[in-house]
């Protein structure tokens, strides 16, 4: 984990709703799939709190690291990030959080990725590493419409089995990604899979339920409002099951990746 001031290397806007931010970090970070950073424009006082952003891509070039983030412009935090210019400074804390483990996929030899909306970017590094491991990969990505499919080309470049759905049918199959997933699993009842997902809670919850029906283990990357990102405010909790009871676990330390069945979903 590094607390450091970094430089905006590039910022790219997709329409008015999405942004891709490329930062140059003057040190090497070893980023694991599913980890995130806390970001805010350097010195900005409004908003005060940094925003958690999942690493989309990272590339080390002689000691420096280029990291990419893709975000949806919603409120104050993402608006202030969207206003950055090349050369501006950014306060960076990361990498943070528990990553996706590749081990289970190594034993099942097959993996499924289910991404929804702006949760999709959090899966690219994982997809790349699974491919490196020679694991048979099927990727299901969903979004509201074609305009909400950001970074899709980076996934197709992996040339794995890729299914894209949009709620309005403006691209790929019409309907929810969970429908495409179910069809696929019906056709592959005989095979073993490990499932990784990131997206809206409702989608991850349904995905976990579906996976359970086919005896597939799910790993979900959750979101929560965060004040610190490194475990001290205990503000980012999600309720998770324990042997007897349940506890509130910190998404920033015990997560963001949890076993789907561990989480007590509340949407």
């Amino acid at each position, binding site marked *: 984990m590094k607390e450091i001031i970094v430089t905006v290397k590039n910022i790219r806007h997709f329409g008015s709703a999405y942004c891709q931010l490329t930062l140059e970090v003057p040190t090497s970070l070893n980023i694991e799939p599913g980890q995130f950073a806390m970001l805010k424009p350097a010195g900005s006082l409004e*908003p005060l*709190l940094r925003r958690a952003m999942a690493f989309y891509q990272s590339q080390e070039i002689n000691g420096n690291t280029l990291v990419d983030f893709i975000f949806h412009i919603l409120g104050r935090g993402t608006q202030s990030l969207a206003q950055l210019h090349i050369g501006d400074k950014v306060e960076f804390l990361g990498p943070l959080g528990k990553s996706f483990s590749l081990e289970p996929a190594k034993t099942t030899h097959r993996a499924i990725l289910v991404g929804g909306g702006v949760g999709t970017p959090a899966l690219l590094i994982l997809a790349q590493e699974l491919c490196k491991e020679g694991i048979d990969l099927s990727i299901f990505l969903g979004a509201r419409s074609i305009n909400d499919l950001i970074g899709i080309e980076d996934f197709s470049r992996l040339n794995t089995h890729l299914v894209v759905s949009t709620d309005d049918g403006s691209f790929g199959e019409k309907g929810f990604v969970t429908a495409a997933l179910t069809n696929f699993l019906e056709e592959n009842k005989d095979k073993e899979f490990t499932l990784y997902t990131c997206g809206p809670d409702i989608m991850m919850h349904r995905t976990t339920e579906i996976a359970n029906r086919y005896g597939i283990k799910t790993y979900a990357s959750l979101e929560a*409002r965060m004040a*610190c990102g490194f475990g*001290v405010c*205990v503000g*980012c*909790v999600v309720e998770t099951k324990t042997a007897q009871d349940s506890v509130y676990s910190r998404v920033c330390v015990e997560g963001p990746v949890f076993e789907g069945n561990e989480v007590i979903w509340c949407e």
Partner: protein
Amino acid sequence: MSDLINTTSKEESEILAVEIAGIKFKNPVLTASGTFGYGLDFANLIDLNRLGGFCSKGLSPKPMKGNPPPRIVETHGGMLNAIGLQNIGAKAFVTDKLPLLRNYDTKVIANVFGYSLEEYVEAIEILNDGEGIAAYELNISCPNVKQGGIVIGNSPVAAAEVTEAVKRVAKRPVIVKLSPNVTSIKELALAVQSAGADAFSLINTLVGMSIDIYTRRPRIANVTGGLSGPAVKPVAVRMCYEVAQVANIPIIGIGGIANWMDAVEFFIAGAKAIQVGTANYYDPCCTMKIIDGLLEYCQKQNISNISQLVNTLTR
């Protein structure tokens, strides 16, 4: 503790060292309860050996689960929180955290709360056996379930009772943390002072609320939460100043401190040390920057020890 690396320069220690309730802090920069975990989480972010001290997350006799999410929301210049005092319990703090904390040369203040007099006493008795605690800080901003849920810190009488009860058993100095949600902070301070408190810390959070206008639900599951951050600083400085007019025990200033200039305001208003809270979240190394800034300010202003600043408002 001679075996511990001491990263504080001689000059720094001469200029910044302060004593409160017999405790010698290497500098007046502490961190506020609930914003610093149990200290160890910051070990790889800042040099703990350079920090004056820190307050642990609020401790209760037994572990507590805390409130359902959402627990926090950002507001303009601050944030609301209702964590529900989730903590590992006093016992686990003594057995699991203190042994590791003893490797660092900084003052550990155990922040304690309860929902009844007995719970406060129980927690203190557990902590009395722990080695490496410099003082106790009582969070009296919680409801007394036995007295119909009135907030202890909102009643001078109730606050004095808790202070007395704890002082009877406490083996260490007792800092009482005042709630700002009162008509007269002076009256509250006087009650706590005559009950035997060794020092004050103030302020705790202001009670606030935020609503999602689309769902019409509170943005915090607990409905109300505690407001903290730079937004509350003017109220905190004012309360420090008011308490300083009547206090004959030291004051530790808290509320919206994010840089060394904020800290100096509190010293001038009457605080002998300060605690940094919310700023630890969005600027994790701010305490180190504050120490640097205070040192430079004192040198430029020819202040040989920072306590010369305390309570020096000129009108």
